[in-house]
């Protein structure tokens, strides 16, 4: 099986007049976990958004398996799953209905996801409206979405925020499981709890 690889070449990003990072070069491939470290406001989220294609960098290239992500967005997004502090679920619909909508948009998603909800202790509340869930439950639902999407590349923005130590352990074990199955994880966080499991680190000033 050929390895998947994410290449970043010469990435430069400005916010207004301020330069967040200049000429950034790195790659990540199967089984690796990349940690983007930095204080608040250092550009971690911007770098992650640039990697996902949401933000266009001022200079530089992002290549997924040697193809520019701008050239084949569909292919890149098919292999990508995103997690940020805005959960991206509809509060009127139940967890199950939200997840079913997500998997209806992807061809490679996992259809029978009850065992995933079980593992994340969401099975009892899967039919409740999303709006009444606690912060920890909402985050676990986002994690469920990531696993269900069956994507190769996980991009996580502050995955441990608003979580107790049990919640953070769930994130850690999900990330480790994913990379054991040859997935790639890129995490942006200012917390130290994830450093032990990472393979590469980038620090933004």
């Amino acid at each position, binding site marked *: 099986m050929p390895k998947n690889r994410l290449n970043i070449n010469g990435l430069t990003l400005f916010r207004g007049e301020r330069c967040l990072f200049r000429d950034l070069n790195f790659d990540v491939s199967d089984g690796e976990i990349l940690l983007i470290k930095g204080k608040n406001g250092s550009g971690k989220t911007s770098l992650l958004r640039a990697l996902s294609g949401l933000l266009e960098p001022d200079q530089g290239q992002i290549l997924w398996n040697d193809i520019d992500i701008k050239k084949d967005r569909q292919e890149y997004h098919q292999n*990508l799953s995103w997690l940020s502090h805005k959960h*991206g679920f509809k509060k009127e619909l139940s967890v199950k209905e939200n997840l079913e909508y*997500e998997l209806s*948009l992807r061809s490679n998603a996992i259809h029978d996801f009850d065992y995933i909800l079980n593992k994340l202790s969401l099975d009892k509340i899967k039919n409740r409206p999303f709006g009444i869930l606690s912060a920890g439950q909402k985050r676990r639902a986002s994690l469920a979405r990531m696993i269900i999407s069956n994507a190769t590349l996980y991009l996580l923005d502050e995955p441990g925020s608003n979580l107790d130590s049990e919640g953070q352990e769930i994130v850690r074990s999900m990330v480790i499981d994913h990379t054991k199955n040859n997935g790639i994880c890129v995490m942006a966080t200012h917390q130290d709890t994830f450093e032990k499991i990472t393979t590469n680190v980038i620090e933004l000033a």
Partner: protein
Amino acid sequence: MNKYLSIWVGFTSTVKRDCLISKKNLSQFLNPLLLFILVSASLPFAVNLNESDLSAIGPGIIWIIAILSFLLTLSNLYMHDQDDGCLDYMLLSPQPLPILTFAKTFAHWILSGLPIVLICPLVAIFYQMEFDVSLILALTLSIGTFALSLVGSIGASLTLSTKNNSILLSLLVLPVTIPILIFGAKTVVLYQNGHTSLSGFYFIGAYCMFALSFSPFVSAAALRIGSE
């Protein structure tokens, strides 16, 4: 087998989801409709006109009130998605973004435009309009509100990153709807006076087709730029 899910599946599941949300949030769905009914029903009492004058101004008035109540829901088209983070997921979806924007626009028309179209023969009674005239009115409104959804989607996506965007949205969308308003109302008035020409329909239909050809793509581009 196709590598990606067909765009038809993406379209229908997005429309279904938006309708499902509305079903669970009925007040948001009913409010503009009630506004339309109340305002258009109370206007004949406010003006002191005889029967024939009332039925002459009826088409234009109902058209304008329909447009205004429609505009109420337009600013929410993408705003809720931006607030809860769903917009990012739309932008990152393997489905082409124009399909998703068109699906949301179509769902908006089903939820805001279609009820107005269905209820307008009832409202037309207040204006002493004949039943067949009110049917023509409903027909012009059906195409007109669809065109309005399409144009409104462009306006909503452009004004997403501004504050006070519902006022700005009205400023952008209302002038562009003046041609549809003129032709839509004129068609009904001409029918009332005995002409059965279809030229007004041709214009509204052409406007609608023209808007359809670029609205999903322009909305998608504006959403991408606005989310950077």
